[in-house]
């Protein structure tokens, strides 16, 4: 089988590029998204800044969980239950 850049098979290479695009947005997107939801709830309920902080924190926890689960699914190691998908 021909190898791609960095000596990997094309499938592995494309999979890792997808991972490089996926993981950062899972982390920051969840945090920023949670913060935005909290911000709008704060504006609506006049509870600033508490809901923004709480939702941002929840987003951060969710993002971190998502990253760990994605890594586990792709490799079948740390934190993984089901192995490679």
């Amino acid at each position, binding site marked *: 089988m*021909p190898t*791609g*850049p*960095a000596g*990997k098979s094309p499938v*592995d*290479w494309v*999979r*890792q*590029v997808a*991972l*490089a*695009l996926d*993981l*950062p*947005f899972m*982390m*920051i997107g969840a*945090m*920023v998204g949670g*913060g*935005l939801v909290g911000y709008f709830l704060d504006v609506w309920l006049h509870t600033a*800044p508490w809901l*923004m*902080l709480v939702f*941002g*924190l929840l987003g*951060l*926890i969710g*993002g*971190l969980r998502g*990253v*760990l689960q994605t*890594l*586990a699914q*792709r*490799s*079948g*190691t*740390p*934190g*993984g*239950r089901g*192995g*490679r998908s």
Partner: protein
Amino acid sequence: MDRELFGQAAQQRVEYLTLGLGLAAGIAALALRGWPEAAGLVLGSCVAWINFRWLRRFVRRLAGASMAQPGDEKAPAVPKGMVWGMFGRYALLGLVLYAMLLRFYWPALAFLCGLFALVAAVLLELIGELVFWGRRSMFT
């Protein structure tokens, strides 16, 4: 499967490209829209850069931790210290961004656009690798 995000050199290039593209977009925004948008774009690209850098290091250390437990059929546990360290870093980053949002004015939309500097950098690297790879395989 190893957990390296493509090659080491490519990862370095993506980091530099993220910063470079963010800076270029910031300069363009400064000329076209003014400093708040430029500051938001540059800040967003800096967050994208630091996020990629932290994740890269996290993935590498996680791979190292899993390789340190060979022969274990069951999935080994993720080191708690590593996860808490990651959590602390991002919590600190979130608090810094929140404090900056309170203290200074910077447009959230420009900041969100700045985050996409990483996508542009990865796509640029992808195109570069494909062009270089295609040219190399054509002659070998």
